[in-house]
């Protein structure tokens, strides 16, 4: 590999939370050279979770969700509205869709995910919610008495269902799963969530897929795989996501599921080599967390872009400082506690750890009552690897500690 030009900037591709945290961390870790952040969206980094909850229920504005800009970030260059199309790891260059080819000294991959779409004609009334612009477009159509079909019953689909219901829409969830949120939560809790959502007036059709979306220019009805037809004005597709890895084609990075990284967030090649000048952060990063085991995983929880961004920034700063500290910084174990929360009606879920690692037999109520407030434990090989609070918060803290110490 050719030597990188030391005068070139660190280029961070992806201007969302992970890219922002990586840039902040580079500065805090003492790197004073040039940083450029390249992002496809025109908006400066913002907080996504409120887009399906609080913000969607009120006014969707950038101001309501923007991350504050820190003083040390003053000289970071933002190149927004530009999409990365190719990268050359030998020449240390990045190509963008405006035709520009730029040099980088080090590269941070933070391009995240995009919403998967159903494969039907693009008519009005079909929505996804990933970006601020998506949420703005949907908000305009969530008027009282609108008939909304939500496809998919993950956290996002269920949150959107609750928000639409609260805005006065009639809401039907269509899902291939047996129960809402069953994959992360397990059967026991998912059944209780179905009971609660149904009680709030959300209709749930499970075990079915969408066969067709009918309507000439805008949505009129949704046809299900079992032949049922649901009249609808709005269809919200929350059917998973794709990793934004197309621009990495032609490199030797392992992009079989997201982008493989080591525990220092260095990108790893298909030959198993970790690159000191290429890093991966956020949803797209598949990395090992010693808290659980040595299996690299992508974790789509809210804290991950921040934790991986900080880690990548610190390691990269040490590499660029070339002051002998690099090996020590890399060797420092990185074991972030995955955490997420979800608000649906008055139900407040909060979780720590990796709930999805365990089978249904290893889930049990630790405290409280599932139909009211509860703490639920998720065990793997007898060890607590996840805890879920339904309405409980402070009670979760000792369990979080127990999960975190499991990796020590």
């Amino acid at each position: 590999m050719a030597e990188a030009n030391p005068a070139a900037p660190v280029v961070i591709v992806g201007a969302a939370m992970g890219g922002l945290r990586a840039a902040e961390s580079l500065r805090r870790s003492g790197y004073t050279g040039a940083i450029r952040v390249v992002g496809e969206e025109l908006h400066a980094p913002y907080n996504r979770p409120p887009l399906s909850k609080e913000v969607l229920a009120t006014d969707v504005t950038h101001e309501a969700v923007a991350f504050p800009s820190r003083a040390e970030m003053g000289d970071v260059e933002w190149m927004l509205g530009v999409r990365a199309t190719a990268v050359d790891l030998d020449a240390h260059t990045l190509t963008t869709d405006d035709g520009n080819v730029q040099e980088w000294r080090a590269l941070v991959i933070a391009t995240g995910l995009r919403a998967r779409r159903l494969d039907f004609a693009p008519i009005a009334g079909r929505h996804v919610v990933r970006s601020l612009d998506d949420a703005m477009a949907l908000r305009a159509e969530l008027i009282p008495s609108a008939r909304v079909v939500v496809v998919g019953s993950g956290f996002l689909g269920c949150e959107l269902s609750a928000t639409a219901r609260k805005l006065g829409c009639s809401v039907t969830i269509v899902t291939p799963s047996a129960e809402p949120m069953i994959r992360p939560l397990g059967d026991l809790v998912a059944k209780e969530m179905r009971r609660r959502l149904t009680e709030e007036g959300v209709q749930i059709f499970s075990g079915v897929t969408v066969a067709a979306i009918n309507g000439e220019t805008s949505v009129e009805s949704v046809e299900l795989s079992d032949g049922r037809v649901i009249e609808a004005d709005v269809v919200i597709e929350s059917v998973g996501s794709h990793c934004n890895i197309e621009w990495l084609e032609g490199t030797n990075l392992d992009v079989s599921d997201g982008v493989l990284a080591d525990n220092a967030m260095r990108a790893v090649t298909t030959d198993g080599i970790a690159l000191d000048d290429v890093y991966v952060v956020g949803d797209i990063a598949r990395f090992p967390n010693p808290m659980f085991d040595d299996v690299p995983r992508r974790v789509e929880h809210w804290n991950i872009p921040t934790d991986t961004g900080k880690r990548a920034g610190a390691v990269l700063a040490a590499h660029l400082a070339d002051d002998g500290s690099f090996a020590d910084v890399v060797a420092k174990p990185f074991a972030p506690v995955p955490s997420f929360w979800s608000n649906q009606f008055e139900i407040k879920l909060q979780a720590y750890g990796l709930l999805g690692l365990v089978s249904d037999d290893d889930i049990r109520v630790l405290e409280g009552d599932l139909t009211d407030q509860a703490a639920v434990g998720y065990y793997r090989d007898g060890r607590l690897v996840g805890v879920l609070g339904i309405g409980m918060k402070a009670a979760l803290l000792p369990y979080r500690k127990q999960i975190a110490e499991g990796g020590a």
Partner: protein
Amino acid sequence: MIKIEVDMNQCQHYGQCVFEAPDNFKLNDDDKLEYVAEAPDSERDNIEAAVDVCPMQAIRIVE
């Protein structure tokens, strides 16, 4: 001295800040956030981490 402000209209009492800066943030027995609005400069890293991890982005440092 660092001055901290929490927008209690935004705060949903998730308690993520409690792990980052336990000297300044805690959840009380009713699962509500309580915080100390001032911290010594030596706590800056922890307070900034608390700002970062707040799901509602309700915490800020008053400069």
